[in-house]
């Protein structure tokens, strides 16, 4: 997407461990760069108004809504999308948590939920309370309203990552 005569900005971004360099128009949003230029369609466009969080990716270790950043703002950044979570064919504990606990129904919000939880669980470094998980995913909407199992999946993952601390839910 570039109109004739439109400015192009050179960016270098590391996505899921691979370095890319492209020239992008200033108004290209990061989510479109990820989906349309890099072809990583696991990151979704939900509301396109910064509300739903389906487009959440990790940028320099923090969850961000990629529909609310211009691609040029990611120059020099390290990005992880949902495609970059599994390693050597093994799912990340958060992904496994969603699979094991029926943490998705239609699945549209799932990548965003997972990336937000990735930031949150890396930050708390322990098993959080249910209330803390619910607050962490405030910026992610599930239109199927399947929040109970999403929260359950997060707690399951936290237990995998940091141990039970008494266990159970």
């Amino acid at each position, binding site marked *: *997407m570039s*109109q004739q005569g*439109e*400015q192009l*900005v050179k960016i270098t971004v590391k996505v899921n461990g691979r370095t890319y360099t492209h020239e992008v*128009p*200033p*108004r*290209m*949003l990061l989510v479109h760069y990820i989906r349309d230029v890099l072809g990583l369609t696991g990151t979704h466009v939900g509301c*396109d*108004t*910064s*509300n739903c*969080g389906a487009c*959440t990716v990790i940028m320099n270790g*923090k*969850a*961000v*809504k990629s529909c*609310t*950043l*211009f691609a*040029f*703002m990611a120059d020099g950044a390290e990005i992880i999308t949902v495609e970059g979570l599994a390693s050597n064919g093994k799912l990340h504990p958060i992904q496994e948590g969603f699979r094991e606990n029926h943490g998705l129904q239609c699945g549209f919000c799932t990548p965003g939920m997972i990336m*937000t939880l990735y*930031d*949150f669980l890396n930050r708390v470094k322990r098993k959080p309370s249910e209330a803390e998980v619910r*607050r*962490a*995913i*405030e*910026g*992610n909407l599930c239109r199927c309203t399947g929040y109970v199992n999403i929260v359950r999946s997060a707690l399951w993952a936290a237990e995998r990552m940091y141990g039970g601390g008494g266990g159970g839910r």
Partner: protein
Amino acid sequence: MYPPEFKVLVPSSLEEALKLLKEHGDNAKILAGGHSLIPMMRLRLVKPEVVIYLGKVPGLRYIRENGSTIKIGAMTTHGEIESSSLLAEKNPLLQETASKIGDLQVRNMGTIGGSIAHADPAADYPAALTALEATVVLKSLDGEREVKVDEFIQGPYFTDARPDELLVEVRVPSLSGRFGTAYEKLYFRATDFAIVGVAAYVEVDGGAFSRVRVGLTGVGDKPVRARQVEEELVGREASEASIEKAADLASEGLEPPSDVRASSEYRKKMAEVLTKRALTRALSKAKGG
């Protein structure tokens, strides 16, 4: 939704940013975290010809104590303010306010300088910054000046900044002694702007209120202090009964807007209720040590 075409300029020093601002001033918008500007550009409510991006300008991201003042760089994110141990101890009002802005992702990107310069009449910070009598530092090639936040914000999306000036720093007091603070925010959905937000800061001396500051957001064109409440309480017994009486004065003189989320009357009533809650919580913290 793509915004209309624009040209981006990416300065790598403050000096360069100020030069660009001087050159493009009227036609340019400054981009920090982008969480106010980008949504408005996408909706084409704002169509700048030039965007000056501050992401590569070093030295605008810090929280440091300087005597009785805490200085916060304009590019400091809400998340950094929320997790600052310095602020948690010496200005918990700003820290609590930051923790109630938007959601995790928004707090990871949105900046305090951007939020204040954007001057949304329902933004969270202005309540606290008004109560704290905070100031902002504006810089241009011609020098710098310090302006009180409640004079800086002049109306919805309208500030005292000249087109060639950049908001570079926010200054809040470092609090000490027997004080307590609280920010109460009413919203219907998480991540929403405040329908009404009330920030309270009290100091207690010998069983009486020695200092009271109440700042309100979402109740008009710009943040306001509830001076009637403050005056009523100072010198009175530091008790919930005193607060109960005084809080009803919070809506005096207010003419809040009516919109899809709340009527003007409702906002007035909520200004009273939240003032009571904020003061009560601030008092209990002041008494607790």
